[in-house]
């Protein structure tokens, strides 16, 4: 069966080699990370969540820290993250992941702790918990998936919804005079001295995926230094609620999302 590769640039390392029991000439160059549970995911086709889950678990596996890693799942589409990530996890109330992670990390400072949160969870109901955790320099990683919309509740406006974007609760398009501008979480949190490494990445291209993985690797490694909070903001997509095909959604990221949310490192160690 032909796999359609979504018009993404393909390199040798990206190419998926089909496995075949009868033929031993193929070398396996890609596999599901062992730290990712072998389970069908509930995410919609084309959704970035599953890819980011995999990247986090690849990093955990490659660093050999599965036994020392504790995750915190949010409320939102990724509420079931603990069903897919084969590490000990707690599922926090909506927005409270950074408070829960604070409780975990303060008691076990030698463990690797991360939260996984969407834009509604982190930037709306949980912005106080997030901001104060970062201001205290809590030594954990926040993985922030920004897809500009509430996914689980079917497409309502989020704090990161773009100006003019139509959602079920901004059916005529988000107006700045009424709802304010989308919150640039990475830039906001980078102003706090407690943040150590803040970056914004995408996963809608092979290059983006590689850069995101590198960012996650950095962030996990920085936890060994105990220098402050790491925030990796990832521009996700939401084909279902953006009412787009996955290809259109990934294009929308390049054409619109990155204008409001510029890509790249916002704060790297040694600065600020």
């Amino acid at each position, binding site marked *: 069966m032909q796999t359609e590769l979504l018009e993404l640039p393909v390199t040798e390392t990206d190419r998926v080699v089909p496995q075949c029991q009868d033929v031993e000439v193929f070398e396996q160059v890609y596999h599901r990370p062992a730290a990712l549970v072998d389970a069908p995911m509930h995410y919609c086709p084309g959704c970035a969540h599953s890819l980011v889950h995999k990247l986090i678990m690849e990093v955990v596996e490659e660093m050999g820290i*599965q*036994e*020392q*890693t*504790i995750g*915190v*799942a949010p409320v939102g589409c990724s*509420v*079931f993250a*603990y*069903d897919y*990530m*084969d*590490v*000990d*996890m*707690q*599922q*926090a*109330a909506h927005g*409270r992941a950074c*408070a*829960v*992670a*604070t*409780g*975990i*990390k*303060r*008691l*076990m400072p030698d*463990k690797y702790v991360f939260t996984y949160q969407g834009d509604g969870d982190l930037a709306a109901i949980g912005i*106080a*918990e997030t901001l*104060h955790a970062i201001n205290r320099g809590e030594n954990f990683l926040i993985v922030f998936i920004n897809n500009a919309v509430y996914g689980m509740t079917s497409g309502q406006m989020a704090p990161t919804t773009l100006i003019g974007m139509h959602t079920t609760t901004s059916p005529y398009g988000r107006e700045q005079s009424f709802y304010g501008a989308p919150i640039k979480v990475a830039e906001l949190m980078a102003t706090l001295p407690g943040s150590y490494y803040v970056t914004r990445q995408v996963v809608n291209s092979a290059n983006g995926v590689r850069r995101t993985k590198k960012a996650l690797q950095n962030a996990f490694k920085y936890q060994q230094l105990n220098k402050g909070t790491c925030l990796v903001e990832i521009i996700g997509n939401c084909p279902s609620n953006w009412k787009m095909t996955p290809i259109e959604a990934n294009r929308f990221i390049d054409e619109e999302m990155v204008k409001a949310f510029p890509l790249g490192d916002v704060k790297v160690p040694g600065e600020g």
Partner: protein
Amino acid sequence: MIQDIRLMKGNEALAEAAILAGCDAYFGYPITPQSEVLEYLAREMPGRGRIVLQAESEVSSINMVHGAAGAGFRAMTSSSSPGISLMQEGISYMAGAELPCLIVNVNRAGPGLGTIQPGQGDYFQSVKGGGHGDYKLIVLAPASVQEMADFVFLGFDLADTYRNPVLILSDGAIGQMMEKVQFKPYEKPDFDKSWATVGKPPTRKRNSISSLHILPEKMEQHNLKLLAKFNEIESKEVRYEEMQTDDAYYLFVAYGLCARICHKAMDIARAKGIKIGLLRPITLWPFPEQKLFELAGKVKHMLTVELNTGQMVQDVKLAVNGKVPVSYYGRLGGMVPTPEEIVQHLETIINYHHAN
């Protein structure tokens, strides 16, 4: 052997007990009349290798407790009424996820911002669950500084035994008053914490702490499991103090500060020849229903004395199931009744209902 007897505020005795009970972590937010707990622990815990952290809100405090308790540590928070309201979401999640923890409410008068004086208006919130969903907290009601200390040890042990949040429901007077207190030797029992999220070794499945069961069939099973636990608690953990009920015609039912005042009221009434006893619920949930039902066969009338508009009186009525009349007397808004006015009210009831 010299006994270690100290003169302490209720809030400070509770804080010291937390350290002695092996509390690993305390997360809190300032609010009158319980800020001494946070202040005492901020001073005393860091030097003993314990974690103490002032959170940005009570919402955050309870969720930090969630994280620490979920990692298998003894964790607690304390607050007063408005702050406890903010914690209800987190408490519901912890009850749902079966996480043990100790929560302290030094009850002030409400509703809203109310006042900083003592109140018992949080009775319903405390004993009926408090947050959303179907759950119970084990609720301990101290009536002295000594019990402020003792119930910390008991509370942590009950929380760990049943994997359920425990609430100490105190009030502004018990928290602020100074009395002698003695700290008894305590050894923390071993509790199974194999469910905690401490990092997954290859030898076991990952631990997931969650209150989410999206399939109704599974959620119902979870509810039934919790119900079985609550039934077990009701059958094993009812605690109360019974005073002068042997020959009693009448009965005060009161907890916490009001029970203290009823002691004195009982002496005054008995000096006047009124045979009255006192039942002081120590656990407000589980409630001493059966004891009250038994006493309903002996006494002619029960009178609850509460710092609210009549909350526990409803549970007493349910317990006696119409066997005897039950009345209520209370003061509100941070005002506290005198023993004399309680006796006066008692005499009015006797004259009205039982004159002949």
